[in-house]
């Protein structure tokens, strides 16, 4: 008598394929697709799912968390300034107040709890998956509106050119959140298609860019919300080093902005059984 139940290899394979296919089929259409599973994307995902939204996060790496695991200089102590420590309270992450309004915790603890909370709330993660393009539809006002993303397995991009005729796949959503960090991949795609004219980076007279990043979080194009460090790229705000407080609060703002959009969408109802909070 072995330790584990007797299960054949083929049953294991079928379980993997069937379950993945069933879930993938379900998420061919979702409320919100979040591109990028760094701190702001994860926070937004957790909040949205808690409020009853059907959320899929796509992440190009096999691991989730992006730069959340380590802080500056690859040291895994991360700092947040008040009031962002309240987000750590919400996640149940312990921290220390090292000086008035300045808090430290560890990357692994904060990151793992943020991922766990998103999973617990019902977020679907599609990792090793690269964002390739947006799906455009005509909105109710006749103007183009982003209504999903085109994606492919990340390794396809690394294949030699002659064998990359491996077409991507499109998935639809009511909203897309660009949480792709400095690259701002989703908005950059819209710019490349001539749909927006982004300011680019030119130094402004900014000495407090964390506030500006949080407050610029929101709808940047019909159907697209920008969150986290991507905000700095899209609005031409100064690039910053690791600033987790701004990322956490930006993620919360992105979720709030997405919920406001969803609630204004005809026919949208929060999912039953979701851990909806007030």
């Amino acid at each position: 008598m072995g330790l584990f139940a007797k299960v054949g290899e083929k049953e294991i394979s079928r379980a993997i394929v069937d379950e993945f296919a069933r879930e993938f089929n379900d998420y061919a259409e979702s409320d919100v697709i979040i591109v990028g599973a760094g701190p702001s994307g994860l926070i937004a995902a957790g909040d949205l799912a808690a409020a009853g939204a059907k959320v899929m996060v796509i992440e190009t790496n096999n691991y989730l968390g992006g730069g959340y695991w380590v802080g500056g200089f690859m040291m895994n102590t991360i700092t947040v300034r008040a009031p962002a420590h309240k987000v750590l309270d919400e996640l149940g992450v312990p921290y220390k107040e090292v000086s008035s309004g300045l808090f430290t915790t560890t990357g692994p603890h904060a990151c793992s709890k943020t991922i766990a909370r998103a999973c617990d709330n019902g977020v679907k993660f599609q990792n090793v998956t690269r964002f390739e393009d947006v799906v455009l539809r005509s909105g109710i006002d006749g103007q183009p509106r982003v209504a999903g993303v085109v994606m492919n397995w990340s390794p396809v991009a690394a294949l030699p050119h002659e064998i990359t005729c491996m077409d991507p796949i499109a998935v639809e959503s009511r909203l897309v959140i660009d949480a792709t960090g400095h690259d701002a991949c989703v908005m950059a795609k819209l710019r490349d298609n001539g749909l927006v004219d982004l300011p680019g980076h030119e130094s402004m007279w900014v000495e407090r860019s964390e506030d500006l990043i949080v407050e610029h979080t929101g709808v940047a194009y019909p159907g697209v919300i920008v969150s986290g460090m991507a905000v700095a790229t899209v609005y031409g705000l100064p690039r910053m080093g690791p600033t987790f407080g701004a990322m956490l609060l930006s993620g919360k703002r992105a979720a709030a902005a997405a919920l406001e959009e969803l609630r204004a969408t005809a026919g949208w109802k929060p999912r039953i059984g979701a851990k909806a909070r007030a």
Partner: protein
Amino acid sequence: MGTGPLRLRLHLDHPGAGVDLPRLCAELQQVIGRGLDLEVVPSERSAFCPADPAARRALAQAIAATKVTHPATDRPSGQGTRRRPFEGEIQFEARRLGGDASAAGILYDGFWLQQVLAAALPSTQMRRDWLHLLLTNRLIGTFDDSDRRWHARMVLCGQPSIVSTTGMVLAPALPRDFYTQRHLHEQSGSGVLGEHLRAQMGEAVVQHDDPRQTQVAVSLTLQALLYWTTLEAFCTTAGCRLVDAHTQAALVALHEDEPALCPRHGHWAGAL
């Protein structure tokens, strides 16, 4: 002037914690006396934050267009390479007008912003005996043709006048060493360090949320009133609070003790 007192209407746009509004008003009333009919316009009645969503969006769009995003190539009033604002920029300005955003640091073309705001004022108040003044933390700049550069400003005279609390911090010059240091920090990619660098200078300079901003705001408001009533832009008599301070050292010195008007401008204020 007309027969009645000059109506000064103060509009607030997130001036920040440095400005003590009751003190500002009391000080203005004390300096000018009965010649001034001063009112702080509540935001729900201000022409600069319309309640109607369509009007608010239109104003937000017009304000977003005045951003200077490429100081090297943007020129006044939309000349140069200026882009059209995209949806997110309009929505940010709409959030600001609605009170849901207040961060400063973006540079706006001051004279263009002034035109946009003037267009929002009721035509019945576009008169010599009405002066609207926006007290804001928005950073405003003007383009100087002589050196072909944008310069941050503390005050812009005219209708409406604009007094910028962020301008009090960023416009008056600091010793060159500060800019060298800040540039080095900026190259390192941190947005927080510039703020720390300035904070280290303590009371030698006017800081963000500095309580001395109240007295500076009084001086700048008087400057706007002086221009509005006499077309005189500032004073050249040493020690007069209407002197145009080009450096932080001068600005701080001017507001160190009890800032005062020179005899000539004391007389002007009393005669309003």
